[in-house]
Structures are given as structure tokens and as C-alpha cells.
């Protein structure tokens, strides 16, 4: 009985669980809701949205809202608020969307009206409204930037009205900012068509008009200083044409295509500027939408331009041009910025000439070639005829292999020509990429050879400078040595004084030998030797001058306190007398004799080391067991033997 009941209960619970959970689970896979903090790009705020999970992907689906505003921040300083609201469908923004960006300050004063606290704000507010279809703008879009003062609209800073159909701009558009308004129209395929006009706020007539025909620009008419200027764009119907976006690149292409004389500043200020401003705002929205889901929110205004594709050979040549450009730019900059060269050129005519050549190459070769490299990076070259390009780059014609520069610093007067020995190998003729490549090569080779010439010159100059520095050091050392000898000589013993005088004599002799030398290279080497030698002699002088002090130290160290029972005092007694006697009577005279008779720059070092080692050893021997040594020293008068017994040489070697 009990068993049956339990079984029944179990089955019914399973059914109950299934009935309740399955719909829940199904619904869960359909839609989930999120509410909480979210960061999208640089925007951080509170968000609420629906989403679904497919596989491992989270897809936004359903209404989306994200916003932020901070009253506290507003009252304290300023607040950046925003609001994004719209709908996603399968991760694509779809349907009506609204974006708001506000940068507000408040005057920190509040009013109570009815049952609300009111704070007046000032700042700018951007308001964007429109419809999207599968991530692409579809229908009318307005983008407005307003300046707000005390919570009221003060001025429209920017406003654009564009109608899209499936991402492609349609019919007419209107973009305005504080200074002007641009109106224009498109064909159904988004190509610019007919007259696009820019009106300045104070003028009745259009100040700038661009005439398109099926995307192709035919004429630009602009006003400059109350004078109407017309630029005809020659259109060769036989040329291949390509549809591209009307953006900065297009403007650059136009500038390249126009003849040199037809420079209208409209390309920098008028219509292109407004279009660029508009594109920038659209990109702001695209960044947000792309971060959230899939979108292509760009005002894709289309135009048609002549197209001259780059062939394989031209592409290879461009690669080579880039390599040459980078190398020659590096060389020319290092040379032009070299402080050494800049100083040398003031005194050296040859250096000045080479410097001027580098500057000429930099201006006439490298700068134009840099533009080619730059255009290539922007993807412009394929829209410009090569001859047009070259004329634009070298309006006065391409430079020649013979680079002529003025002899004087101010480039007036006689000139001098630089030419590479293998110049005849180069051919700059023809308006082709190949000629540009030749120019790039010539610049590189020329700079290479100049760098080589200048490096030799600079190295030589550097040696000269170093020699001067060495000489200064030598003089300082010589003075230092003489001063030291003079100051020590007046206080020391006669024997020490004789040794010091000998050191001085050797120093003086070396210096006069140096000054008698004429050849720079050997002089340089000898100066270096002398600097070392003087350092050694200085050390030797110090070693000799400290001998009396060292002897006192040694004497003090070789004292032993002895208890004298008859006086009941501790008396110092000299100990290990044989060692101190050997030092005083054998070693020190040997060192001084060496300094007086055998001293040279080559062995001064050795003598210093021996003297220092001997002193150190004397200090050590006091504490060592030396009875055997003392026995051996008894009759030893040979300094070398004594040093050997003291183990000085080995100690010097170890150091």
C-alpha cells in the first residue's frame, strides 16, 4: 500500500515539474531582460534591454534603453548626460531610434514649481532622431546640435536633414551650421547630382556651387573677394570611372586633379568642411550602434571619379619608392639635425656645400616623394593621372641629377654642383612612376655618398676636438703634478725630494716631447699615452709623499705594550725590528733609487703598485707569525729578495 502511494506521488511530481518548467524554459530561450549598469564605448550608464541567447551568442532583441544623468554632478560642476533609446531585432538596430547627448552646467539655483524642484541648465544638447532598417538608416534622419541657455534654446549650432533608403541617401538633403547651409540632391542610387549649393548666412546668393552629373563633378563655382571663379573639371568620357564616397579622400583627389592654377580655398573651408562635420556626427552614432549590435550608420554620399588603376609594375615601383624614401629621409634628417655638422659647416666650406646639397635633396626630392608615399597610403594614386600627379608634385619640373647649390651660406653668388659619379645611369624623363622611382633612388644614393663624405670629415673633426680636450687635460694634470710636488717637496726629506724632482723632470720631458710633435695622428696617440703616464706619475708622487707618514704609521703599528714591573707601567716596545728595518733600510731606499734613476712612463705604474703593496704588506705582517721570516731577513740586503720574502709581488699581482 505504502509503496504504491509513494510511486504515484513521484510520478505526479515529475509531471508537475515538467508542466511548470518547460514553458518557463522555452520562454527563457525566447527573451531575457537585463537591467543594470552598462558601458558602451566611452558611455557608462544604466541600461535596460531584452536579449536572447542563441548558441553562445547574446543577441539584442527588443526594446533598448540606456541613459545617464547625474544631478549631483550637475549642481557641483557639470554633467554629461546621454540617452539612447530604440529597438533591436536579431541584433540589428531596427525601427525608430533616438539619441540625446547633453553637456550641461547649472547655475546651482533651484526653483520649486508645483511639486517639482527645477534647475536651470546651460550647455549644448545633441538630438538625433530617425529610423533604422537592419542597421542601416532608412527614412528621414535629423541630427541637431543646440546651444541651450537657462534651459532655453539659444542657437542651432548644427543641423542635418537627410533622407535614406536602405542606407542610401535620397532626394535632397540639407546640412547647416552656424555659418552656412548646404543643400543638394542625390540620385536614387545615392550619387550626387545637379547643383550642390552652399549659402552663407548673410548672403542671398550661393557662395559656392558644385555641379554634379550622375555623380561626376563637372564644375565648381566659388566666390572669392566678390569675384566669381569657375573651375571646370575636364571630363574625358573615355576614362574609366569609379564610384567612391564623398569624403576627405575625394577632396584630396579633386585637389590633385585640378590644375595648379585653379586653387580654390573652398576645398579647405566650404562645402567639404560641412560634409566632414556631418560625417563626424554620424560616426558618433555608428560607434554606439556598432558596439551594441550590427550597423552601418554612415551618410554614404556617392560620387564618381576617373580611375586609373595601378598596374603590377607600378605597385612594385611604389614599394621601392617607399623603401628609398624611408632611407633617404632618415639620412637627411640625421645630417640636417646633427649639431656637429651644423657647427662644422660654419667653418668648413666643403661641409657647408654638402650640407646645402642635403637640404636641396630634402626639398626637391624627398618632400615630393613623401607625398607620393602619403597618397599611396590614402589610396588616392589610382584616381590621378600620373602626368598630373608629377606636375603637381614638381610644378617647376623634376630636379636634375646635377644638384646646384650656392657656395655661400645665403645661397647668393657663385654656385657649385653636386653630381653622383654614376649619374648617367639615372633617367628622370617621362611622367611615369618609373621616373619617380629613379628620383627616389638618386636621392638615396646621393645622400648615402654625402653621409660617407661627411662622416669622414666629422670623425676627423671629432679627433681634433678630442685632441684639444686631451691637451687641456694634460695641462691640468701637469699643473696638478707640479703643485703637488712643490707642496710636498717643501716638507719632505731630501731623499724624497730628489725622487720627486726626478718625477717632475720626466713629466716635463714627456710634455716637451709632445709639443715638439707635428703629425696629428701620432700626436693624438701620444697624448693619450701621456694622460695615462701623468696619472701614474701623479700616483707615484702621492706614493712618495706619503712615505714619511706611512713610516710613522708602521712604527706605531710595530709597537707592543709591555708591562714593566719596575715602573709598574705599560711601555710600548718596538717589535719585529728586522721587518721594520728591512722596510726602512732596504725597501724604501730601493723605491726611491728606482724613482731617481730608472723611472719612465712605462714602469711608474709598477713602482706605484709595489710601494702600495709593500705598505699594505707591512701592515699585515705585524699580525702574522713571522719568526721564520725574521730569521731569513737577518742578513738580507737585496730588495728583490726582501720583497719576495715579504710576498709583495704576489700580493700586487692579486690586486
Amino acid at each position, binding site marked *: 500500500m505504502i509503496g504504491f502511494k509513494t510511486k504515484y506521488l513521484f510520478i505526479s511530481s515529475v509531471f508537475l515539474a515538467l508542466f511548470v518548467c518547460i514553458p518557463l524554459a522555452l520562454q527563457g530561450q525566447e527573451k531575457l531582460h537585463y537591467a543594470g549598469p552598462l558601458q558602451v564605448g566611452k558611455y557608462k550608464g544604466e541600461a535596460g534591454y531584452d536579449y536572447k541567447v542563441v548558441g553562445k551568442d547574446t543577441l539584442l532583441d527588443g526594446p533598448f534603453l540606456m541613459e545617464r544623468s547625474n544631478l549631483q554632478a550637475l549642481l557641483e560642476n557639470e554633467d554629461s548626460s546621454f540617452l539612447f533609446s530604440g529597438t533591436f531585432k536579431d541584433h540589428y538596430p531596427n525601427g525608430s531610434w533616438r539619441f540625446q547627448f547633453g553637456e550641461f552646467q547649472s547655475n546651482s539655483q533651484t526653483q520649486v514649481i508645483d511639486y517639482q524642484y527645477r534647475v536651470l541648465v546651460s550647455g549644448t544638447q545633441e538630438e538625433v532622431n530617425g529610423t533604422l532598417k537592419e542597421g542601416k538608416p532608412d527614412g528621414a534622419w535629423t541630427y541637431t546640435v543646440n546651444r541651450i541657455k537657462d534651459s532655453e534654446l539659444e542657437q542651432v549650432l548644427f543641423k542635418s536633414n537627410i533622407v535614406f533608403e536602405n542606407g542610401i541617401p535620397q532626394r535632397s538633403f540639407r546640412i547647416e551650421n552656424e555659418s552656412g547651409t548646404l543643400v543638394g540632391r542625390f540620385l536614387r542610387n545615392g550619387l550626387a547630382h545637379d547643383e550642390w549649393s552652399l549659402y552663407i548666412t548673410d548672403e542671398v546668393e550661393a557662395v559656392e556651387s558644385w555641379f554634379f552629373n550622375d555623380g561626376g563633378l563637372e564644375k565648381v563655382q566659388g566666390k572669392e573677394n566678390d569675384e566669381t571663379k569657375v573651375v571646370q573639371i575636364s571630363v574625358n568620357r573615355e576614362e574609366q570611372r569609379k564610384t567612391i564616397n564623398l569624403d576627405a579622400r575625394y577632396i584630396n583627389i579633386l585637389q590633385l586633379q585640378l590644375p595648379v592654377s585653379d586653387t580654390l580655398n573652398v576645398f579647405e573651408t566650404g562645402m567639404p568642411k560641412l560634409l566632414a562635420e556631418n560625417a563626424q556626427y554620424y560616426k558618433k552614432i555608428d560607434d554606439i550602434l556598432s558596439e551594441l549590435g550590427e550597423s552601418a550608420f554612415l551618410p554614404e554620399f556617392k560620387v564618381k571619379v576617373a580611375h586609373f588603376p595601378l598596374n603590377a609594375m607600378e605597385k612594385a615601383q611604389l614599394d621601392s619608392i617607399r623603401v628609398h624614401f624611408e632611407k633617404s629621409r632618415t639620412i637627411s634628417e640625421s645630417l640636417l639635425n646633427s649639431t656637429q655638422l651644423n657647427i662644422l659647416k660654419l667653418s668648413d666650406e666643403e661641409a657647408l656645400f654638402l650640407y646645402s646639397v642635403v637640404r636641396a635633396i630634402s626639398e626637391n626630392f624627398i618632400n615630393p616623394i613623401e607625398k607620393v608615399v602619403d597618397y599611396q597610403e590614402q589610396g588616392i594614386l589610382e584616381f590621378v593621372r600620373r602626368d598630373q600627379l608629377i606636375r603637381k608634385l614638381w610644378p617647376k619640373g623634376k630636379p636634375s641629377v646635377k644638384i646646384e647649390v650656392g657656395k655661400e651660406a645665403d645661397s647668393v653668388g657663385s654656385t657649385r654642383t653636386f653630381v653622383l659619379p654614376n649619374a648617367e645611369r639615372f633617367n628622370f624623363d617621362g611622367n611615369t612612376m618609373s621616373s619617380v622611382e629613379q628620383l627616389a633612388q638618386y636621392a638615396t644614393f646621393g645622400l648615402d655618398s654625402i653621409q660617407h663624405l661627411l662622416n669622414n670629415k666629422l670623425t676627423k673633426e671629432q679627433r681634433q676636438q678630442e685632441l684639444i680636450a686631451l691637451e687641456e687635460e694634460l695641462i691640468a694634470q701637469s699643473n696638478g703634478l707640479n703643485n703637488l710636488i712643490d707642496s710636498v717637496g717643501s716638507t719632505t726629506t731630501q731623499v724624497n725630494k730628489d725622487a720627486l724632482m726626478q718625477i717632475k723632470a720626466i713629466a716635463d720631458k714627456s710634455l716637451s716631447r709632445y709639443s715638439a710633435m707635428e703629425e696629428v695622428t701620432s700626436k693624438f696617440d701620444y697624448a693619450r699615452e701621456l694622460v695615462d703616464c701623468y696619472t701614474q706619475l701623479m700616483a707615484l708622487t702621492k706614493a712618495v709623499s706619503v712615505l714619511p707618514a706611512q713610516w710613522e704609521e708602521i712604527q706605531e703599528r710595530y709597537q707592543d705594550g709591555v*708591562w*714593566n714591573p*719596575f*715602573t709598574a707601567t705599560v711601555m710600548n716596545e718596538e717589535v719585529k725590528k728586522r721587518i721594520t728595518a728591512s722596510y726602512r733600510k732596504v725597501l724604501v731606499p730601493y723605491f726611491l733609487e728606482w724613482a731617481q734613476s730608472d723611472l719612465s712612463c712605462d714602469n711608474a705604474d709598477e713602482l706605484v703598485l709595489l710601494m702600495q703593496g709593500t705598505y699594505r704588506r707591512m701592515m699585515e705582517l705585524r699580525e702574522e707569525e713571522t719568526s721564520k721570516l725574521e730569521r731569513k731577513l737577518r742578513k738580507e740586503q737585496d730588495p728583490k729578495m726582501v720583497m719576495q720574502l715579504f710576498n709583495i709581488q704576489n700580493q700586487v699581482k692579486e690586486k
Partner: protein
Amino acid sequence: MRHYGKNTAWVLILFLICSSLSLSAQEEGQEVLPLESKFKEPLTKVWFNTYGNIRISKRLFWVAQTHFRLQETESTPFVGQMAQIYNRHAIGYIYSKKFNVSLGGVLRLNFNTNEASMDRNLVPEWRIWHQYLFAMPLSSVMTYHRIRIEHRWSQGFAENSEYIFRNRWRYMFRLKVPLNSHKLEPKTFYVSPEAELIMQSGKEVVASPMEDLRLTTTLGYIVTPRLTFAAGLMYSQGQELSNGGIYKQSWTLRFHMYFSPDFRKVKNKLPEIHFND
């Protein structure tokens, strides 16, 4: 200062003992005391003294002294002939730099300097002695207080003469003043004035407790901490044993050699030199 106090106390005690002893001895005197004290003509003497202090351990040393004392006679004026040879030995203990004690024995050989005497020429004399030496630095000068107590057995030159026993109580005060240095150190000359009072007691000492008062000045030269030479002149006077009314006097030329070898191994002696300072 504490040492000075102690010393003074010692000296006072000695004086008290001595004076009481001498008082009691006088009562049994056989010699007739003169009405006035009589001072004999001073004798001249020459002493050659060697003083050895041989270090045997950190605190112990062996005192080995040999003195040759000559005395003038009729035939040998001034320098005189050999009167005594001392052999003094002891073991000393260095308590500190400022205090040491010694205990040992003396064999003194007495020569008969009386040319007319038909008695023995040489008799031995035996002593046990102990000494307490206090040393105090005073600026560059060293001061010393020496208390030496001797127990002596001596006999006359006559055949079969008996040993007599006496105690000697000696106190000496001495200075050593370096002359060519700021302290006593090798290659230093020093001058050393000293005064010693020697009192005696014993059955035979009846009216002559003051055996000797010695006033000396020596000039010394410290060759090394282990070797010093000194020479000086001493005036002394003291009561004759047989008659307290008669005072001997003498002028003595003294030549001293002080030596203190240390045969210990270097490693044993290095750290202990300074004792407990």
C-alpha cells in the same frame, strides 16, 4: 686615594708596634747609653745591584736579585771590599697595575770587613721577606709606596756564635720623574728620589729600633721596557744594635740594573698585558 689611606694606616700601625717594642726592650739594656746620641763618621760604600723580574705567568713573576755590596776599609778607602752578597728571591703576584705582592727568601753572605778581626771571614744570614708595593701615577710622575717586612736570622762572625732573630719593618716612598719624556718609556732618563725607613724589632733589639733611614736619589735610563740602568747616591743613618745612642752613617754609591725578561710564548702574553684596565 683609597690606597693612600690604606698605606698610611699600615705605616701608623707599624710605628706603634715598633715604638712599643723598643720601649719594652730598653728596660733590659746592658749597654750604657751615652748622654747624647753619638754619630759615627760616615762610611763609604758601593753597591752593585741587579734586579730581575722574570715573568712566569699572567700574574706571577719570579723575583731574582743579586746585590754586591762593597764597603770601605782601612786598606781600601772609598770603594772598599766586598761586604755582603745578596741573593734575594721571591714569587711575585701582580694583583693589578697599581698593586703587587711578593714573598720569598734571602741568603745573604756577610763578609767580615774588620781587618783586625780573627773571626770567621764569611757567615750566612737567612731571611724570609714579603713586600707590598703600591704604584700610583701622578701626572707624568709615578709614585710608589713599598712596605717590606723581613724576618731575619743573623749571626756574628765569632766562632759558634748563635743566630739571632729579628723582624725588620721597612717603608719606602719613591718617585720616578721622567726627564726627557712625558712618561716613563724606553729611551727615557728619569730621576728617582726616595726615602726609606727601616725599623727593627726582636729580643736583641733593645734601644735601637731604627735600623736605618735611607735617603737616596738615583738617575735612571730606561733602555727598553725590559732593561733599565740607574745610578745614585744614598745617605743613611741608623742606631747601632748594641747601643741605641750610637748612630752609624754612610754614603753609598749605588749602581742598579733592572731586567725583566719574559720567556712566555707570544700568544700567551698578548692580551694579558693590560691586566684589568
